[in-house]
């Protein structure tokens, strides 16, 4: 049960070592670890085809939100999420503009009240893996509600 083009062999081997399982307090009776579960995935029932209403409720409570996308991903591409955020109908509070990491353009972002849409340039689906520096900067900035 492995997503295509993702090599998870090393972490799978490490997590399945007996001494690692013991260190992590995993019962010996449990089956081997795998990155994805066929048992769960095959029987999973999707109830939400869009989470627009959920976002609107959360944002109306004043919660802070960040939707970010590595812009080379095709499983969940940035354009779809940009349209999703725009479709929330929340007033635009900043221009669509660049953000900088290590003196380079790291992507683009736009604020809509308490929600921000942000791209990470050149990163794929797993942003913290493929753009770790920019991802950490983005993460810290969001936590402190700072300026990207």
């Amino acid at each position, binding site marked *: *049960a492995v997503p295509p083009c993702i090599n998870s062999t090393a*972490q799978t081997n490490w997590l399945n070592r007996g001494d690692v399982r013991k260190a992590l307090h995993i019962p010996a009776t449990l089956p081997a670890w795998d990155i*994805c579960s066929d048992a769960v995935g095959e029987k*999973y029932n999707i109830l939400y085809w869009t*989470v627009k209403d959920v976002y609107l409720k959360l944002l109306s409570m004043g919660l802070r939100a960040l939707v970010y996308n590595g812009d080379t991903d*095709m499983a969940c591409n940035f354009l779809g999420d940009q349209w999703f955020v725009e479709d929330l109908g929340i007033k635009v509070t900043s221009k669509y503009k660049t953000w900088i990491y290590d003196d380079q353009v790291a992507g683009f972002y736009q604020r809509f009240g308490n929600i921000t849409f942000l791209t990470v340039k050149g990163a794929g689906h797993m942003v913290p893996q493929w753009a770790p520096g920019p991802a950490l900067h983005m993460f810290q900035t969001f936590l402190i509600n700072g300026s990207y």
Partner: protein
Amino acid sequence: QYAPDEVTDLPGMTFKPSYRQWSGYLQAGPGKFLHYWFVTSQRDPTKDPVVLWLNGGPGCSSLDGFLSENGPFHVNNDGATLYENEFSWNKYANMLYLESPAGVGYSYSDDQNYETDDDKVAADNYQALQSFFVKFPNFTLNEFFIFGESYGGIYVPTLSLRVATGQAKINFQGFSVGNGLSSFALNDESLIYFGYYHGLFGEDLWRDLNDNCCNKGGCNFYNSSSDSCKIQVNIAFSIVYQSGLNEYSLYLDCEGRRGLSKTYEKAMTLLFRNYRKTLHTSKYSGPRLSSVSLN
């Protein structure tokens, strides 16, 4: 309650970590136990926020997030030794990784019934979260955020709503989703434009898509009732997903080369359910070409 869960030594760890970590189980209902791994901040655990991280799937483990994305250490290719991640998110936050729902990774249910849905996952995660703060009461006053990726686009907001409206005393401040699935329709619709404007489709296919799926200035690539439109969209999706490209990162090589998993096939069927009858019979669905002859 957290003392027995503390991880004091890890095989393959040749460095001394500047943070503490615990691994164990959180109860998510009767007989349902979710595996968690909690690492404190490298800065000031008492003041830094607590961040929950959820990977997607549905049905994939958040330990992938820990061990290959934003965790404090990753596994070397030898599968035996670890190296420090200088860009770990626990530089600024206490990070909680939760394997969810039961049946994923080392999480389990006594009855081994792993059929679930979005609402049940949110409910289970919320219970597990309450279990976490009972186990770690010192962190209840810290700011709390929920982060997720991919199908976390569904997990994160649905759990966030329960946290925001529930009775548990959690200092919830916000949420974030990375490359998330927020709308199936917009994800499908936008992919056609993404593919065309990244040069994946030729002008012939683009013309056929427009001729068969668009009308009066608007296009519907998501759920058109036109069979001819479905055929064209199916061809486009096959180029994206089945021609040998790395769908998770367009410009990276495709690693692993393992065959398609049942989970992956299920995910594809769910994502592009309007095209599932034809997706597997398209002209691109045959065996992958060798790297030598890829065009």
